[in-house]
């Protein structure tokens, strides 16, 4: 199941796209299959990453908690969609369908400053 999910992840979001200096941001998006919120989140994230110039490079893992419930337990997913930007010291967490593009841009900007 997880294989299927990661396949889908690659299909939806652009694959790893390293920046010139090799820096990239790691993102995890937890969704619940094709619920309206989850679909909107995927679209919104995709659009933001495409449009947003600050992002040096990015890697997105898409996790469907309905398909991979174990992952929901281990990663302690509470709401869907949840976007987590993995940093070396801390994580940034955003919940919702990412329809607030200003907030999403803010998160990506903050994630880009992780080094």
């Amino acid at each position, binding site marked *: 199941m997880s294989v299927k999910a990661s396949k889908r992840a690659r299909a939806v979001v652009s694959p790893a796209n390293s920046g010139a200096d090799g820096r990239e941001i790691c993102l995890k998006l*937890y969704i*619940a299959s094709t*619920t*309206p*919120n*989850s679909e*909107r*989140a995927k679209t*919104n994230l995709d659009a933001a990453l495409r449009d947003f110039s600050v992002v040096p490079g990015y890697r997105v893992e898409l996790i469907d*908690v*309905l398909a991979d*419930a*174990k992952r*929901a*337990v281990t990663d*302690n*997913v*509470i*709401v*869907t*969609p*949840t976007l987590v930007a993995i940093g070396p010291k801390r*994580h*940034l*967490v*955003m*919940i*919702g*369908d*990412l*329809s*607030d593009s200003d*907030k*999403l841009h*803010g*998160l990506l900007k903050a994630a880009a400053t992780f080094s």
Partner: protein
Amino acid sequence: MRKSAKRVSELRRVRNRGRTPKHQPIRKKPTGIAGFDQITDGGLPVSRLTAVIGGPGMGKSLFALQFLLNGLRTAGEPGLFVTFEEPVDRVRANVAGLDWSFDSIPENQLALIDARLPADTVQAGAFDVSGLLAALTARKAAMGACNVVFDGIDLLISSLNDEYLERRELARIDDWIRAEGMTAILTVKSYSMSDRDQKRADLIQYLTDCVVRLEGKLFDANFSRTLRVVKYRGSNFAPDAVPMAIGHSGIEVVPNQISRDNYPVFLERISSGVPRLDAILDGGFTRGSSILLSGAPGTAKTSLAASLAAAGCGRGQKAAFVSFDESDVQIIANMKSIGIDLRRHVASGRLAMMSLRSNGHSPEECFLKICDLVRRHKPDILIVDPLSAFMETAYPFAAIIAESLVDLAKSKGITFLGTSLLGQAAGEVEASAIHVSTIADTWIHVSYVVQNGERNRALTIVKSRGTGHSNQVRELALTGKGIDLVDVYVGDGKVLLGSARLEKQQLETRDERLEEVQRAHRKFEFGRGIAELQARAQAIVQELASKRREAQLEESAEKVRSVARREAITQRGLSRRLADDSRFHPRHKKQRAGR
């Protein structure tokens, strides 16, 4: 318009998922909170959603935890506790003061799940709880969990900031619970900051099958907790607010449904420890009955109560002595001074003593402590001294609790004695002073009688159901050898006690002696009179006899005379004939002229 139509259809889809058209009678699952299971006739609805609503500190989480724990302990059902507000270690710490904890329970039996969002979580748009439900589904499958608690879910869904979205998520949870066949509790805060808080609380009340409200209110300075079942779909329930307390084992509820039937009935009499009291009660108290002992301070109520306890222990029975505001040591020492040895019975384990403080504890808390004592000690005799300690507080359930206490004792066949502190008001005013008097089988009242600068105790049996009893006032005497009842002096329209009685009794003895002497004197006088009269009677009889004799003699003399007269007449006739014969005889003429 199109948008709203779409929302409605989505809502309907979410709502209808997992619904079964079958209508089964409601099944219930006990919470382990005995009083609650009683008022709901079995506990919470199985595979349904129950809302526990209350302000902060009212015991919502505790109620839910107790439910989970009971399911695990009694039915071996694993449970999930999802906390949205408090970290897991704080949930554990909150129950650390109780006589149970989670420390010994493995994680796969009772899982505490932290469902708090990270502190700096940014919200960007609408979300749903599918992630949580997916995780819970996985855990349920792994553990075989049957019960689930969502503790403080309003904190999470309120951040949706949209009434429709909140409603949708609640419906999603409701559907999940039904589809998974879980029995669930949703705890919800009741204090409302805004209109939407109120709307959410209302919505949750509509959505759930059972709503339990935990409330607290101050009465003067006394805090009284109550629990109320607001609704229960498909079931009967007692809708009244019932007193609740948080004690050592968590929430306890005191249902105010008193059955008043199925009490064990005994004919056996038990001694009060005061033989004279037993006598006027026609053989003592009836076993399993309730006794109210009322009176002003210092009227030996505690002594009479201790006497009953000591007598019971002396017979080999068990007794429990609950005192308010007086320590065990103090009572034992006081009773020793009047010859009642309680220490011996405490040492043998027959007598259990418990001291409670009446202020700072609600009557329901005290009641639960007494319940606990009864459960542990299993006494034959229960004494609460004074029972009126319950009554004097401003707590709203005092009278009900006192009644529950009597009911508890009756239902277990325990002889109950409660003392009641009453003022100096005398007579019938006392009758309405205490509610318990109506359910007490025997009511003994001890009052002070002040006479001639002295206070004495007067004991009366106001009532005694089902037994003969004296209706006379007795004087209660406390001596170094114990308690005794003394017949009082009744006379001259007065009841005399104490030294007035003694004085009166002495006075009476003196009068009696005097009377005796006078009686003897009178008797002597009478004797003399009679003797005199008898002598006189004798003399008269003799006189009578002599008179009679005289009369007889007279009579016989008369007879002689009349005979002589007749003879003389006859003689005269003869002589006349002779004279006729000799007409001019001179002697004959002289005789006629002499007449």
